[in-house]
């Protein structure tokens, strides 16, 4: 199928894009990498009056450090993040997550900003943004605001962004010294959306004792879900089997999955338990 007719503009600056978006009203939409949006247009599951194409905005394509924060411009492609030495040095989990997004041709084109705003509850970027407590810088023609990723996702394909706003930057805290991470994803084929994914970051002292932790689950809830209960269980522990088992139970109890053709609700809940244990073990193994 082909998209229904629309009008198109390709601004050269964010300010221009924001003005166009404002002028276009509710039926104007932002086009980033297009790897989720264009399928919706092609299938006519969505139609728009006007498209504002962000692909020529060099001012949204960068990776830079700002003190203890890694700032990624919203138009960075998954593949650019996957292979970035700066990312690997500052927060290697992000390179790992990027490599799991779609297939090579999708990663060459799709963007981190587009994935976050699309807000698929099984996608990698929303999951790691929630787990790492990323901050999202969002601009409208008259205002700039920062929204915590943990407050950004409201439901499947639904976020706190307004129709006249553009996500411009994603701000990830650098990995703390001594931090280790885990990333576990279950899918039928490489490149598919996760059936369930779990990621965590632990701060361990020299004896392997956990002083701080964050864990989040994707694909098993209406949004990626940060689960503080798990962190309570593992803080102060050295990752003993009983602690990990208890943490996995907490994670499974926290999610409210829905079933679909890829897996029933019950199956997803069980997989949350399995993958939580694996992610925690993966993280502790990195310290060894």
């Amino acid at each position, binding site marked *: *199928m*082909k*998209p*229904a*007719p*629309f*009008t*198109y*503009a*390709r*601004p*050269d600056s964010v300010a*221009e894009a924001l003005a*166009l978006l404002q002028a*276009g009203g509710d039926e104007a939409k932002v086009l980033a990498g*297009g*790897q989720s949006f*264009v*399928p919706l*247009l*092609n*299938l006519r599951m969505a139609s728009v009056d*006007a*498209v504002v*194409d962000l*692909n*020529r905005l060099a001012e949204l394509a960068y990776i830079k450090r700002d003190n203890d924060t890694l700032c990624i411009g919203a138009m960075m492609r998954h*593949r650019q993040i996957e292979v970035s030495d700066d990312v690997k040095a500052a927060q290697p989990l992000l390179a790992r997550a990027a490599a799991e997004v*779609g*297939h*090579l*041709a*999708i990663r*060459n*084109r799709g963007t981190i900003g587009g994935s976050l705003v699309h807000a698929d509850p099984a996608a990698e970027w929303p999951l790691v943004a929630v787990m790492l407590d990323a901050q999202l810088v969002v601009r409208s023609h008259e205002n700039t605001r920062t929204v915590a990723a943990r407050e950004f996702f409201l439901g499947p394909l639904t976020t706190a962004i307004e129709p006249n706003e553009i996500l411009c930057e994603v701000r990830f805290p650098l990995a703390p010294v001594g931090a280790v991470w885990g990333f576990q994803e279950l899918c039928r*084929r*490489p*490149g598919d959306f996760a059936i369930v994914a779990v990621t965590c970051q632990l701060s361990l002292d020299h004896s392997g004792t956990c002083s701080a932790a964050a864990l989040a689950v994707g694909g098993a809830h209406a949004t990626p879900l940060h689960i503080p209960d798990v962190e309570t269980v593992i803080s102060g522990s050295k990752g003993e089997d009983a602690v990990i088992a208890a943490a996995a139970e907490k994670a499974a109890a926290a999610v409210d999955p829905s079933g679909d053709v890829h897996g029933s609700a019950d199956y997803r809940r069980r997989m949350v338990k399995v993958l939580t244990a694996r992610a925690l073990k993966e993280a502790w193994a990195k310290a060894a």
Partner: protein
Amino acid sequence: MDDSQFTDRQTIHVRVNGQDYENEVEVRRLLADFLRHDLGLTATHLGCEHGVCGACTIMMDGESIRSCLLFAVQADGAEILTVEGLAKGDEMHPLQQAFWDKHALQCGFCTSGFLMSAYDLLQKNPHPTQDEIRHGLSGNLCRCTGYANIIKAVQAVAEQSQS
């Protein structure tokens, strides 16, 4: 033309397989349809038209992309390589020759997409393991071959370039 205004048609300039084109297109025109219908380059195939099957994979500015997920206007100024541009005259590209030798196609519908995905894979990783080839081609669907001979063909090219 002022790009900062909403329009429904635009004139674009692209270089495809070394040849320059200037065409006016409707802004909703998919790049794949532009190649096929406006330029007559029908070797790029369209299977699913929503980014799942990989049949429409081409190279744009040195990266493989899905040409069904890009509008032709977005390719304005770009350099494009389609499967028509792989061979040098009558001499097939090593990937094409390997697909021939290893019987890596049956109906051939998916082949141009596989060739372009393999082209990008080998450009980024000239000596992939079998597992890396499988991952690299995981975004392309083939309903005939069972994939085994496609993997063998790409492996053969990787080994040639090693020797």
